[in-house]
């Protein structure tokens, strides 16, 4: 990939700053309009029955059964060409969620006949647990960020550490925006995906900054700061692209073949890897360059 050495990637930064800002602002507005991210059962609590009905029936028939129990009308069909699999959801009650499930199950048995109803999965998350999970998630997120911040500021010069974190927050915000655009529900899987992206995004940025650190050895390199940074991005560009490509390949495979449970997780990872790659090429180094223009970095002896 020799041709890439000529790309003046850093000079596109006006454009990339605007692009990123637009996506993130749109995402945040969208989240605000929907009163926050849509929370899945893990964080909002609730009851879910996943059931296969072995008969040619429509979703409205299943919905009517749920309505007859008095627990609402939230029924979804899982994409599956051969089977009729439905998700029946209710909100979480303070107590006796177990009874809610029993009632719905019995209503299904009575309506369709016991042998035609296969209960595949039952989830109950009571209100205390969902509050607990939500709280733990915040703690986990904050702890991860603090540790990573500590590590990067220990390993790199202050400016690089700060910009790496900004790029990372940028990536997470983009992922969160896309989650809201596509109406996905936040659950523990997506939380895991986001934390993985935090690790991955930094990984990408660090490889570029490692090059920059190596290149910033002479006074001349500091004089031509923008050129040096741009050169560093270019030097690590093929690595960045290839790794993103192989990682993307496996996540896309996971998205397509991993089954419905993995879909949201894989989706968040796909967006995160793309955002991480993009930000390490266009955002992180660009920010360092602008910072240098505002307040030139002192030459460090190596």
């Amino acid at each position: 990939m020799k041709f890439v050495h000529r790309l003046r990637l850093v000079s596109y930064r006006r454009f990339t700053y605007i692009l990123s800002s637009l996506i993130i602002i749109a995402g945040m507005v969208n989240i605000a309009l929907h009163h926050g991210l849509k929370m899945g059962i893990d964080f909002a609590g609730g009851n879910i029955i996943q059931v296969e009905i072995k008969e040619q029936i429509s979703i409205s028939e299943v919905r009517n059964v749920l309505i007859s129990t008095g627990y609402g009308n939230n029924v979804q069909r899982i994409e599956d060409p051969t089977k009729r699999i439905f998700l029946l959801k209710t909100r979480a009650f303070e107590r006796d969620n177990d009874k809610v499930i029993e009632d719905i199950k019995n209503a299904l048995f009575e309506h369709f006949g016991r042998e035609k109803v296969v209960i595949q999965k039952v989830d109950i998350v009571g209100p205390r647990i969902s509050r607990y999970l939500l709280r733990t998630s915040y703690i986990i997120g904050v702890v991860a960020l603090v540790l990573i911040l500590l590590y990067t500021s220990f390993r790199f010069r202050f400016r690089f550490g700060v910009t790496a974190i900004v790029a990372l927050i940028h990536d997470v915000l983009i992922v969160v925006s896309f989650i809201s655009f596509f109406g996905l529900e936040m659950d523990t899987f997506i939380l895991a995906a986001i934390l993985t992206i935090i690790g991955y995004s930094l990984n990408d940025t660090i490889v570029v900054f490692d090059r920059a650190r190596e290149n910033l050895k002479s006074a001349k390199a500091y004089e031509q700061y923008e050129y040096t940074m741009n050169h560093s991005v270019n030097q690590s560009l093929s690595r960045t692209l290839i790794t993103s490509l192989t990682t993307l390949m496996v996540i896309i495979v996971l998205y397509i073949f991993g089954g419905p449970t993995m879909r949201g997780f894989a989706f968040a990872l796909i967006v995160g890897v793309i955002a991480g790659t993009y930000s390490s090429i266009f955002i992180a180094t660009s920010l360092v360059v602008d910072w240098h223009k505002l307040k030139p970095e002192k030459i460090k002896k190596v």
Partner: protein
Amino acid sequence: MSKLFRIIIILALIAFATWGLSYTYLWYFKYSDKDRELANLTAEQLVSYPEDVREKIKEMKALRSRIINLGLDLQGGIYMVLEPDLEKLKEKMGSAELSQEDIKDAIRRVIEILRSRIDKFGVSEPTIAIQGEDRIVVELPGSKDPDRAKTVVMSSGVLEFKLVDEETTAKLRRDMFDEDGNLIDNSIIPEGSELAYLWVKNKYDVLVRQRAVVLYKDVLLDGSYLKRAQVQTDQFGKPEVIFSLSAEGAKKFARITEANVGKRLAIVFDGKILSMPVIRERIPGGQVRITGSFTMKEAQDLALVLRAGAFPVPLQIAEQRIIGPSLGRDTIKAGVKAALIAAIAVVVFMIIYYKLSGIIADISLALNMYLLLGALAWLNFTLTLPGIAGMILTIGMAVDANVIIFERIKEELRSGKTIMASIQAGYEKAFRTILDSNMTTLIATFVLSQFGSGPIKGFAVTLSIGIVINMFTSIFVTKLLYFIGIDWFKVKKLSI
């Protein structure tokens, strides 16, 4: 480090991983379902088997503790978080405030009873643990009939004998009940009596309230006088539960039956009337039989619950995940398929892009996955779908270190260095980058692994172990392969 020494280290690791994985291989591929079932037998059930079978059972149990187990989501099963119903405990203790000691005591009793029930029920690798202050986590992987297991775990286990209030029962009329079968006006029930329902199976095999009966509130006898409970079949082949009362219970029961000949005695379990036989004569000897609308299995479960005793406090389900066995199988298939396709895609890509060096990276990738599985086997790890996702992600990210090295080597070659010097410089310069970039992912996954006991932990653990092993294979192993190529096969031109 000499090549020979490197080879020895690698071979030793492969041998070690193979040793660890051999048990897993035996378990899943050499033994039949029937053999594996043996490991589920409980100590109690063990007694009824002959000596040689017992040896085999022990062997299977030992084997299972050394393999990669499948998580709930992959083999089906139950995960439950239970909370004591403290309001009910207060009522029972008759105090407005509960001391820490009361709660702790109740929890301890509950866990004892749970353990006894689950042990008798027989599932593979059950877990019962306290989470936080007063939450109890129960995990029952691999139960074939999760619904049944749940009934056994959750049944409050309260058995009571009460007399039927015939007078009031006779007054009940259909129009006194609403659509749901609840009494509209409770004033008809006199002081000291209560409404209960007789439960029977309908044609869908669903237990439903058949009719309302008024009982006297007085508990004449309860499950605490119970000594033994077992299942028999009556002359029509219908299952019934026979239990023996303690000496005191037997005396009490004899008195009760003597005083109430001709009346109906309701046998109430978990608040449901199972049956209400007419007392024909005084029953001495303390042998009581319960018939009802149940199958053989249900009768066995009832006996089991009766033997283990009642919970001191009712439990509430705070969280529950039940996964049917068929869904688990589908999930495994999906996970394995995704992993294979992902691996093939990456392997092919690396060969196309890096040619012979790509093959070197692929060998290190294969070794990476093998050692990862070996490590999981040694840890007696429970594999979940997120765990498989962690592995798949490892496949994608594992080549990263090699990509960094190869790109460096290419650069060095372009600057005119010899093959040997380029390789040396490539590895040297790439090392720090690889270390730094992997550290951040490790920090993130480490924090993630502290997230409770759920499936997320499985993801974090596989990914972290994968990364650590990856640093070894992608640096140590590939370098050796290059040197072997150059020194032993006199490779003159680098295929990269």
